[in-house]
């Protein structure tokens, strides 16, 4: 990293990251701190302000006494002797001055060059604010800003540019603060706060929050609303996304079949149609679902509701050895385990963090959606739509149940003694900014496409090669496939797949799914050469092929029992290598990720086999 940089520090919910996004025009990226496993967002001050300055966003912290991994990151960045920030911009919520100035006081005591950004100015009347008292008390410049209205942003950028090359003479270590000191400093801060507001005014955000909380935090209605909101969120993933998914599916299906039809018996056209279009389409089709889930999470988070949801669910989660703070990581796990695991950094207790990280891969992530969608559509082909929808809900509830049981078992087995606490600030409700929510949704969804896209592309090539060669001139497709390299490789798998009701084709698709779960669908699409089918969508072609697929003995390959077995396997198995990689980083070693990989995959296989055999014993095909 460059030598000079400006660090953004502030309490959670003080508007720090939003301000950082505004100043960098959101063109920042997460970088790895050299020599450690710490991630932070780094960006350049937007060009419109004239000068180039490196800005670094740090995880929110209330003090310089870290209690979670997140807060340690901030601490390590500030006190790294080799790369000291030239300037520390501290965000102080204008409605929380007395409390948020505690951090300013600690930074000043340690000799940092501080610039105070008084945020959320849209909540007050700027003409009634006098920042002079703060400036005098800390000897630091103060700028009143609002990321929502843009007030003071330019002035803040200029102040940053003015000070970007300053360096404090020497940084002092943090001295412990006694309770009496907190008492004294808070008292002083309250004095300062009283000078800032020229008029005694009614805090409207606070009043609105009080009224809303009376209902949303009500012992009974609070829970009912919570359950309805969660139900609404997951229902919208299916209902809202459906038309968009049909569009994408139809478009890629058309591209694939047209390409193959246009050049019959052409190897390259076959590759482009069956290999690239069909497999990419199989993955892109559920981008709408991911986007909607992230949209819901962003709106809930930015409005301030998510913090309340954590409090509502703290008690039930604590019974499983988890914490209210596990809620956001677990909910994110329904989108993707990777950001979910990183969200667990805000947790203080090591044991609770371990348990949360351990069960995140069991949450039904969006990569499983296309697999379930395909398998359920297959099971309920031609039946009313509410049936697959009902079973999808059932799968989600099952995954929640499996996660809960796993956490409860882990809670018994894991012998880590540490302090568990839940002291959680509930921010004022506010209307989420459309721009920021959209940015969030777009960046998360794009990150997903970027992660999945290349993997799928490479596998499409490998799979197409393996299923087409060496006998690419075979008279029939079936023969071409049965003599292909993929078939030979898959035959090794066959003894393992038999008890699950599969053959080498499901086996190879399952192995491929270990790179990313959604590859399962594209692998099946490749194995069955679906672009040759004359159907209006990829999914219809694939299901038609699955309906008639038989194994060597002529028995149907996809039956109710074998499909149920596959669903159970996908529910539990840890098939995402990217997750394992992130888990190594978040657990701080290979031990736990390997335990996860081994137990989840073994248990899923055993349960799948048991389910298939029981169903067959009861005469279900």
């Amino acid at each position, binding site marked *: 990293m460059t030598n000079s940089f400006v660090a953004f520090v502030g309490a959670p919910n003080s508007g720090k990251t939003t301000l950082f996004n505004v100043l960098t025009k959101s063109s920042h990226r997460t970088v790895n701190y050299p020599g450690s496993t710490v991630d932070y967002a780094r960006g350049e001050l937007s060009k419109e302000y004239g000068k180039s300055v490196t800005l670094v966003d740090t995880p929110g912290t209330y003090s310089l006494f870290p*209690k979670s991994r997140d807060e340690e990151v901030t601490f390590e960045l500030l006190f790294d002797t080799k790369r000291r920030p030239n300037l520390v911009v501290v965000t102080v919520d204008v409605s929380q001055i007395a409390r948020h100035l505690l951090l300013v006081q600690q930074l000043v005591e340690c000799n940092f060059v501080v610039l105070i950004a008084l945020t959320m100015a849209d909540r007050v009347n700027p003409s009634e604010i006098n920042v002079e008292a703060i400036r005098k008390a800390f000897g630091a410049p103060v700028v009143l800003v609002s990321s929502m209205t843009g007030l003071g942003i330019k002035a803040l950028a200029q102040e940053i540019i003015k000070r970007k090359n300053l360096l404090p003479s020497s940084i002092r270590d943090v001295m412990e603060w006694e309770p009496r000191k*907190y008492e004294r400093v808070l008292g002083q801060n309250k004095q300062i706060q009283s000078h800032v507001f020229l008029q005694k005014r009614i805090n409207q955000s*606070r009043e609105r929050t009080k009224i809303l909380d009376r209902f949303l935090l009500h012992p009974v209605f609070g829970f009912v609303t919570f359950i309805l909101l969660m139900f609404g969120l997951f229902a919208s993933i299916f209902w809202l996304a459906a038309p968009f998914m049909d569009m994408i599916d139809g478009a890629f299906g058309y591209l694939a079949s047209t390409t193959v039809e246009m050049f019959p018996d052409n190897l390259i056209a076959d590759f482009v149609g069956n290999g690239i279009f069909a497999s990419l389409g199989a993955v892109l089709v559920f981008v709408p679902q991911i986007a909607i889930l992230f949209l819901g999470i962003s709106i809930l988070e930015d409005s301030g509701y998510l913090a309340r949801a954590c409090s509502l669910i703290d008690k039930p989660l604590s019974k499983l050895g988890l914490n209210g703070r596990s809620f956001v990581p677990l909910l994110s796990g329904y989108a993707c385990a990777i950001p979910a695991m990183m969200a667990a950094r805000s947790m*203080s207790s090591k044991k609770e963090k371990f348990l949360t990280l351990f069960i995140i891969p069991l949450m039904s992530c969006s990569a499983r959606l296309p697999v379930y969608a395909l398998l359920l559509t297959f099971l309920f082909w031609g039946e009313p739509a509410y049936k697959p929808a009902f079973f999808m809900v059932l799968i989600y509830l099952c995954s929640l149940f499996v996660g809960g049981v796993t956490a409860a078992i882990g809670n018994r087995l894991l012998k880590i003694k540490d302090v568990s*606490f*839940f002291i959680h*600030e509930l921010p004022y409700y506010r209307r989420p900014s459309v721009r920021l929510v959209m940015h969030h949704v777009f960046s998360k969804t794009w990150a997903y496409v970027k992660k999945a896209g290349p993997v799928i592309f490479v596998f499409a090539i490998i799979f197409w090669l393996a299923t087409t060669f060496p006998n690419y001139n075979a008279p029939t497709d079936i023969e071409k496939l049965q003599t292909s390299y993929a078939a030979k490789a898959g035959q090794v798998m066959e003894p393992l797949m038999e008890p699950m009701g599969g053959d080498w084709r499901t086996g190879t698709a399952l192995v491929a799914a270990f790179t990313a779960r959604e590859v399962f669908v594209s692998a099946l699409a490749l194995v069955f050469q679906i672009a040759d089918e004359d159907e209006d969508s990829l999914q219809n072609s694939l299901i038609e092929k699955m309906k008639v697929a038989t194994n060597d003995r002529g028995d149907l390959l996809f039956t109710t029992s074998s499909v149920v077995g596959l669903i159970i396997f996908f529910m539990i198995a840890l098939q995402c290598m990217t997750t394992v990689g992130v888990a190594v980083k978040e657990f701080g070693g290979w031990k736990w990720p390997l335990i996860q990989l081994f137990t989840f995959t073994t248990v899923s296989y055993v349960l799948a086999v048991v389910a298939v055999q029981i169903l067959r014993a009861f005469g279900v095909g």
Partner: protein
Amino acid sequence: MVIMHLNIMTGALHLQAKNQVYRIIEVGGNDVIVERLLEMGFAPGEEVRVVSQMMFAGPMITEIQGATVALRLEEAACIQVLL
């Protein structure tokens, strides 16, 4: 628990009634928890209001210096207030 101390009645916050304002006298208990409470503004001399209480003995919602903070009953028990 009610302690008589120089004719002043004090009690732990987790036992206190809803919609009342209390003055904090002392914050004591586990070091990490005490420090976090202090950082959040639960310092001696401050006023705290009990807003509500979650179902099944879940977290207590309090108001401290204009901020709403949820805390478990165990943590609220660390806060001694004037009755």
